[in-house]
């Protein structure tokens, strides 16, 4: 039997680990989704400009649309590079968000079950979403979108092998 003393400073910390990046096509998907979302808005502006006869309505709204569009594109672009996940022996950590940055760690022995989702756009880009559920409220659930399907199923398998040991 071994029961070595461990110094508190020797316990592993999340900051030491290197985060895995999402595949590059996730960025493309994000950007294209933004564009697709903004085109109807543009059409709406152009159509309403036919009905509203104000001087410079079209120029002002169009420039506002353009600025907003560029801002959100920039945020999506920035966001991609701070996203990442780490799988460790006993837990999974996910970080995301540029304006509001979140980093959440869920130990495997608190995970109830995991799920993989493929949306239609995701499938087109060969991506999928891994959802990790904990007990109680939904606040501590984790969803990692934009994963390679093979990676996702590997992670899922790894997590379920780990959780099975504890339950």
């Amino acid at each position, binding site marked *: 039997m071994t029961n070595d003393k461990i110094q508190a400073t020797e*316990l592993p910390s999340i900051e030491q680990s290197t985060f895995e990046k999402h595949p590059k096509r996730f960025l493309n998907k994000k950007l294209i989704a933004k564009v697709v979302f903004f085109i109807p808005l543009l059409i709406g502006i152009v159509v309403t400009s036919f009905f509203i006869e104000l001087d410079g309505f079209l120029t002002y709204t169009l420039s506002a649309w353009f600025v907003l569009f560029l801002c959100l594109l920039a945020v999506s672009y920035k966001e991609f590079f701070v996203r990442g996940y780490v799988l460790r022996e006993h837990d999974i950590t996910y970080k995301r968000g540029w304006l509001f940055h979140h980093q959440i760690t*869920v130990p495997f022995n608190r995970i109830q079950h995991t799920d993989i989702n493929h949306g239609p756009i995701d499938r087109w880009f060969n991506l999928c979403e891994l959802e990790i559920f904990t007990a109680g409220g939904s606040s*501590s659930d984790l969803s990692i979108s934009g994963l390679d399907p093979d990676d996702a199923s590997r992670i899922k398998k790894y997590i379920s092998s780990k959780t099975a040991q504890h339950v």
Partner: protein
Amino acid sequence: MFDLSAPQRQSKKVILVYLLKNIRGLILLTLYALFGMQAWSNFYISLGFTVFFGFVSLISPVLQYLFFTFHVEGDELIIHKGWLFKERKAIPLDRVQSININENVVQRFLNIVSVELETAGSKKKELEIPGLEREVAQELKRQLALKPNTETIETLKIAGDQEPIESVNNRSNLILQLGILDLLKVGITQNHLRSGGLALGVLFGFWYNIKDAVESYFGNPFENWDEDLEQYVTTHAYDYSDIIITGLAGFVFFLFISVIISLLTTINQYYGFQLIKDHDHIELKMGLFNRREIKVPISKIQILEFHSNPLRKLLGYQTARVFQAQSQDDKLSAVSIPACKPEMRAILQELIFNETVASTYEDVPAYKWSYVRLSFYIAICILAPFLVMSIYFNHYEFIVAIALVILLILGLSYKYGASCSIARDDTFMIFKKGWIFPRTIITPIYKAQAVEKWRSIFIKRRKQAHLKMHTASGSRQLKYLPEPVICKLNNVINNRVIQSTESWM
């Protein structure tokens, strides 16, 4: 006498309960039909509807009674219900978290009770057996509560663990009992503004509901109140002191009514309050008209909170709130224990977590100026239009008022921020926040389900972040802490959870 293995019906008296419920609905419907549906001039259609609904509400209670059965099969409690839409519910017994016995006025009169089962993943109302004889309910409660209990004791014995568990756990003893004097104190120290506000809300809601009906008969009583007021003001000579006195009198009246309401609701809610430790459950009994008995397994309790307010601080009282694992962040289903004296605080911690908070270390205060900054931005955003308006209309005295409001908000948030701190000892995390309404949140570290560090981009360069701890009964967070401290705490919590083998819910 009471066999759970065969399907059981409820007490026959429940038909009356269902009937009363239907009649209440029927009366509302009739009122609505009378006032609201005047367009339905056809007499026969209304008559047909009335007869139909009358018939349904008389027959359906009997059918509801006949088709509601429950029994235990294996280790599941099975409830069958419904006549048109049949439902079968199976609840694994070891998932049952708390068993509550409720009794409203009607049920009390009939001497029956309703049994409510709470599980970690269900909506509250779904698992309710609305009418059982009191003895049957107690028996059911005993049998359901005992199941997991006996199991653990057996396994412990097999594992060759020490015996005394039974002698320690099998005591059922009274922890706290509140007399009428305590209740009065609790009632007096309620948040009166809130109860007054609630009363106002109920009043306005009620008025809004009957407004259409009243107006259709009597016309709008407030139709030209502004003209009336103007007339009053022009005919009567008035000065500011009149207005101030009227306002003060109104406020005192409002406070008086609020105090009365808080007293009444407190006594109604907590009359005969008892907190009992029973094996590995805590049991609470309370209520005057609607009597409630709540049974919570201690192991499912995740968070213990202590709330206070200025009045209660004077008396040295605090309200303890106990949060157990559940699926939604529903604050209402938390169990609260009013009138906790400081010594009760230690007793409760000992009772629920088997340990009290020892001397804490790493007491880290939050950055109070960050709170001030945030509320300054928000206040400016909201008040800027008013500021612009007052300048535009040349009413410069409003600028002073706005500045005063902003100063007040800043002062309050400074005090709030100054009261926020986080601390831990070997087993617990302690969050403290709030100045006027101080709140202490205590949760064992191993009960955490996930830890989160988050920040907006604006505080990144200040090296600050927020810590959020997720448990099975919701998340608790503390904002604006030094980032290195949060990283360290994150790692501590996470490593503790990984190492712990105790069952956390």
